[in-house]
């Protein structure tokens, strides 16, 4: 397998939940290094794309991981191939302790406990605490830590800073930046400042389909493109320097893909 071959190839992926199509004919690739951000407005199918890749929802199309098709495999087998997953809603096991949550995620003989402990010392202090009693930020740390314990070849990280205080956002972003030095990441993130800091490339989904692929910095620097694709104005501080557009742009966007 050449180094130029993408770690993940998604071709014509469609996915549905309870019979309703939520992803339509999405195709993109993730290179073997760096962070690829999957962007789009709320509800365009970013989370469903990640869940479709993992087989957590019904999907059609081709998904190749390190050159091997994984679209007919069950979720646990896909993950065992070397994919770590940080879900949107953290999804820690609330009745299990922090230590038990982490233990369950360990898939290899020598998990990276020390690396995780260095990144999230707070979790070491709280190892016996029930995960359901942690704050949102601490739960997110557990969720990210679970994905970093193993030698993964790819991380799928879904909205890791959603609903977190700014200080915790930085901590989580630091952890992902550290992780991205050794493992490629496919990142879904609404906070465009975090995207600007972490991502090398962006893939933008509009209306369930890929509408734009490009360099992260160049894309985010193009205020008009950002407004058209994501429906946000650059320059406002509400969304990490970017605010939602409430103008004709949204309607035009929807019409374009109707």
């Amino acid at each position, binding site marked *: 397998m050449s180094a130029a071959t993408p770690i993940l190839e998604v071709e014509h992926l469609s996915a549905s939940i309870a019979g309703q199509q939520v992803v339509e004919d999405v195709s993109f690739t993730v290179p073997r290094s760096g962070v690829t951000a999957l962007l789009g407005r709320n509800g365009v199918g970013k989370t469903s794309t990640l869940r479709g890749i993992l087989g957590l929802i019904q999907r059609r199309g081709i998904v190749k991981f390190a050159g091997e098709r994984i679209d007919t495999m069950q979720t*646990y087998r896909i*993950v065992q191939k070397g994919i770590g997953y940080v879900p949107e809603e953290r999804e820690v096991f609330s009745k*299990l302790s922090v230590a038990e949550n982490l*233990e369950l995620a360990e898939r290899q003989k020598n998990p990276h406990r020390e690396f995780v402990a260095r990144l999230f010392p707070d979790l070491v202090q709280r190892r016996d605490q029930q995960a359901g009693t942690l704050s949102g930020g601490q739960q997110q740390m557990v969720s990210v830590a679970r994905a970093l314990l193993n030698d993964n070849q790819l991380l799928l990280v879904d909205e890791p800073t959603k609903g977190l205080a700014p200080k915790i956002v930085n901590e989580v972003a630091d952890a992902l930046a550290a992780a991205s030095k050794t493992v490629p990441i496919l990142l879904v993130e609404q906070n465009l400042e975090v995207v600007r800091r972490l991502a090398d490339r962006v893939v933008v989904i509009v209306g369930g389909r890929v509408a734009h692929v490009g360099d992260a910095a160049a894309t985010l620097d193009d205020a008009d493109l950002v407004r058209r694709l994501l429906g946000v104005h650059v320059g406002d501080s509400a969304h990490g320097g970017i605010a939602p557009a409430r103008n004709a742009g949204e309607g035009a966007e929807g019409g374009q893909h109707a």
Partner: protein
Amino acid sequence: MSSVVLVLITGLGVGALYFLVASGLSLIYGLMNVLNFAHGAFIALGALIGWEVAEHTDAASWWSFLLSLVVGAVVGAAFAAFTELVLIRPLYQRHIEQVLVTVGLSFAAIALFDGIWGQDLHSVKGPAWLDEVTVVAGAHIANIFWVLIVAAVLVLGGLSLFLRKTRYGKIIRAGVENRAMVTALGIDVRRAFTLVFSIGGAAAGLGGVLAMHYMTGVTPEIGSSLLIFAFIVIIIGGTESLVGTAVASVIVAVLQQFANTYLWGTGDFIAIVLLPIVLLLRPSGLFGKRA
């Protein structure tokens, strides 16, 4: 005084029996949300095979007694694993269909057992000590009750340790909460759920053999008659709690014994009436989470 002690300890013993037959049902329902009406068939098969073991060995010896317990548990576990793999797994999250298939299996299995063993009572005579009594505060307590109580404590402790301390136990607890996320950690959660069913079946088989010794005999209907009390105690205890099932087993059985002794033999009536009373006052059961 001695009659109160007798009724109390007898109640504890019967409660232990209820817990033994209900623990597997509680585990399967509490962890997998499967209302398993075939549980009575697991109990019956464990008891009937336990009887066969006793018949073909020296039934009066302790080793034969222990062997019948082990074989009964293994047979119950195997039957339950087969049920989960063949009937329950393909109907994942289709709860009504799961209930219907377990009801069907229960009828079919008991009809099969009737065909093999007949409907007559097959008597069993275990170690002589079981037929003797121990005097406590003037009350003559049949020794089988001590065996039931010890077995129930061991099963409760064993199951609790398994769920708390083993990796599979943790997988099961996590899987109950969020099955999809367990698979997203690279774990085949289905194997863990087959294990839950097997453990539930093992407890049923063990309970069946002990119930046979308590009743000094077995028919293929032994499980059906105990299943109603198993359902009563898991609902009263709270379907998510094994400890709740244990406490409810003792409460129901003690009240039942007191009613039988002091209220003109109305024990079964009291046990059954307790169910709607608890459901009306505390729908999630004594140890269940409030909605």
